[in-house]
């Protein structure tokens, strides 16, 4: 009797679980469609999109030099500053928070249509010490044309748990959907109640200029000098690069070698006040110089140059870690000379 009762009760529960699963799958499908639709409308990185739209429009094998790396690359290197002196056609291909696994696949994408003579890979410690970062992968995917490169990237770079999350579309597109809906809600509230968002305190302008470069003449706000400075608490003494990122830097070097491309590594400058926090920067620099040495690539660190030669002032920075256009001009001028003196591609005899 008891057994029979238990069987019936378990059967009822099983039916309940099955109904729940069916209802959940239906809800899943609805959410998936809704989120995917919003994601297709939502552009997260407008400047990055313009950068890549322009790049894909370039004729095949027309680009001589590409800059790849994180925001430190696209906030430091304006291709026009190089092309006007070297007579080249170069392109800025930085993406937000770009890690070196991404740089490798980005270079593969570039090599499908272009054959640059020189690749300038921006080297930043904060991108070197992570195993994996999803946000920057998404920024890359937003502008990546070749689905096969994307598949290969996911297969090789994504840790297993990230692969699972990525395969669940409501999770993958959640941020897009939220951003899209937030924008819609904001517009509704603003039109209905006559209110407006607080304008970001900015003392300058920012817009996409050309060849992947975004112009910006904002000057670092006072708050980033100390209280919200992102380097507050980082002295550099314990910093170590991650093996995964090192592996991909080696792969970038191999890829360049196979394609007869010269590779240059460069660290962009951060604001002078930020450097004051990193009291053991030499340790960070030595480790990055060692990375360059291991792949036999030329390396220049603008934080060292800046501290030795006083190239930059505070007003040359837009924030605690990035240059504004006035700083870009100073650094790029220095870097052009350095390229001429230190690279084979743009050595004195080879300037185009």
């Amino acid at each position, binding site marked *: 009797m008891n057994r029979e009762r238990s069987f019936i009760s378990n059967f009822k529960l099983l039916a309940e679980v099955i109904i729940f699963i069916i209802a959940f799958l239906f809800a899943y499908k609805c959410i998936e469609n809704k989120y995917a639709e919003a994601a297709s409308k939502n552009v997260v990185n407008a400047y990055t999109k313009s950068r890549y739209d322009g790049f894909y429009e370039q004729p095949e094998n027309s680009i001589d030099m590409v800059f790849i790396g994180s925001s430190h690359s696209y906030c430091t290197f304006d291709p026009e500053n190089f092309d006007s002196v070297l007579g080249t056609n170069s392109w800025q291909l930085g993406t937000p928070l770009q890690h070196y696994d991404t740089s490798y696949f980005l270079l593969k994408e570039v090599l499908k249509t272009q054959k640059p003579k020189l690749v300038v890979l921006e080297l930043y410690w904060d991108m070197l010490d992570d195993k994996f970062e999803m946000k920057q992968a998404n920024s890359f995917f937003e502008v990546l044309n070749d689905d096969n490169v994307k598949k290969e990237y996911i297969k090789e770079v994504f840790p297993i748990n990230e692969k699972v999350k990525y395969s*669940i579309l409501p999770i993958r597109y959640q941020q897009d959907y*939220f951003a899209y809906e937030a924008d819609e809600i904001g517009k509704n509230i603003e039109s209905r109640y006559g209110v407006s968002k607080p304008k970001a305190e900015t003392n300058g302008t920012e817009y996409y200029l050309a060849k992947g470069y975004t112009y910006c003449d904002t000057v670092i706000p006072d708050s980033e000098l100390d209280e919200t400075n992102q380097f507050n608490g980082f002295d550099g003494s314990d910093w170590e690069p991650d093996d995964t990122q090192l592996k991909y830097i080696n792969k970038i070097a191999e890829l360049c070698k196979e394609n007869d491309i010269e590779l240059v590594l460069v660290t962009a400058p951060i604001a002078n006040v930020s450097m004051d926090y990193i009291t053991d920067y030499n340790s960070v620099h030595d480790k990055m110089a060692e990375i360059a040495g291991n792949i036999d690539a030329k390396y220049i660190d603008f934080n060292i140059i800046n501290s030795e030669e006083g190239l930059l002032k505070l007003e040359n920075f837009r924030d605690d870690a990035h240059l504004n256009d006035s700083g870009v001009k100073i650094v790029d001028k220095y870097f052009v000379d350095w390229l001429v003196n230190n690279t084979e591609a743009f050595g004195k005899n080879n300037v185009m």
Partner: protein
Amino acid sequence: MLFNSFSFLVFFIIVSVLYFILPHKVRWILLLTASCIFYMAWNPALIVLIGFTIIVNYIAAIRIYNSRRKQRKRKILTVCLLINFGLLFVFKYLGFMNSTVLAIADKLNLNWPVKAINIILPMGISFYTFQATGYTIDVYRNKIKPEKHFGIYALFVMFFPQLVAGPIERSENLLPQFYEKHRFDFKRIISGIRIMFWGFFKKIVIADRAAVAVNTIYNSASSYKGLYLFIATLLFTFQIYCDFSGYSDIAKGSARVLGFDLMDNFLNPYFSTSIKEFWRRWHISLSTWFMDYVYIPLGGNREGNAKKYRNLFVTFLVSGLWHGANWTYVIWGGLHGIFQVFGQMTLNIRNKIKKKIGLYGTKLASFCGFVITFGLVCFGWIFFRANTASDAVYVASNILYGFRGWYDKQYIYEVITSLGLNLYELAVVSAALVFMALSELFSGKRPVYDVVEEKNAVFRIIFYLITAVFILSAGVFYESGAFIYFQF
């Protein structure tokens, strides 16, 4: 290994399957191994520390039990407590004490040679130390017999669902369960999964999302005033609750899947109508631990009101320090001590006034009690969350700044668009909070999942479907944070 991680999901499925495949007599080996893996996933070396605590308490309990003389029993217990709390002191409080001495020396222009002590804080040290200590004291008090099976005892201290953030289990509840034969029970497994669902909902839909706004404001508290601080404090009130009770639910649910019953750690505490009641419903395993092993040994309420109030205050002060090595926690504990003492001192007068105006025992009185209690608890959380004591004082004194202007539409819009959450995220958190609050309100003083379990199948399906849809559509899966109580 975090509960809200893919690795835990895989780990838990493997452990559960193996648990029901293996014969009963070797299951403890599986659970102990799993618990070691669970702990070592965070820092393998620190397993030595927990191992040492296990050995010390295991031997101490047996020796206490075997000793005939009371004096010797007391001596062994004292040594054991010194070791337990000595380790806790070194790993958790030494750096804090040193920095306090350093600050005082600086003020007095004295030279203190040790500038900083940086010792890694072993995850869950406060929890497993208290659990092991409680067991040894129980043996000393002849409440239980010592556990002779070393493996089972080690498992009692290390049982992975509650190892790093509780509930701090009592030996008489958990130890016997390791000897019980747990059969594969479909009903129990589903019930365990449902409890885990509820915990995940609170953690990844509410706590992790609210954390973004709370961190934005509290990490540069002095840049904000008024409504910003008010909303951030309110969100932290829910963040801390959902984070910690979410953990407890996942712990309870995963233990139930395996056939174990852990104690309820939270019983909808924000609906309490007094601070005294709040502490009966908040972090119950810790409150009862302090009651049994601190408050009562101090004399409890046996020696008159003055000593009772002293004991209460001291217990809460120590409870504050248990939470973290920072003066902010001590102040938080002290505040709750004051609330409790004041509440008890004025209880009779308040009741007389209520009776006189005809409010006593009415719903309105309960509602007023709830509002006041909730307000006091929120106020206390300012000190718990603030990065420094001076930040806490700043928040407390500026939280109602410009109150009259709070009705201004433009000001409200500026605040809600500057919290670090976008408007949709804010809407999602609000909806989830309403869903949780209503569920708890209708559950009274019982866990939501227990009440839902008694409803009919349609209700259960709809309830857990809403929970699951919230998790899937609005859970924080990237940059999901560790549980706050891991640091304690």
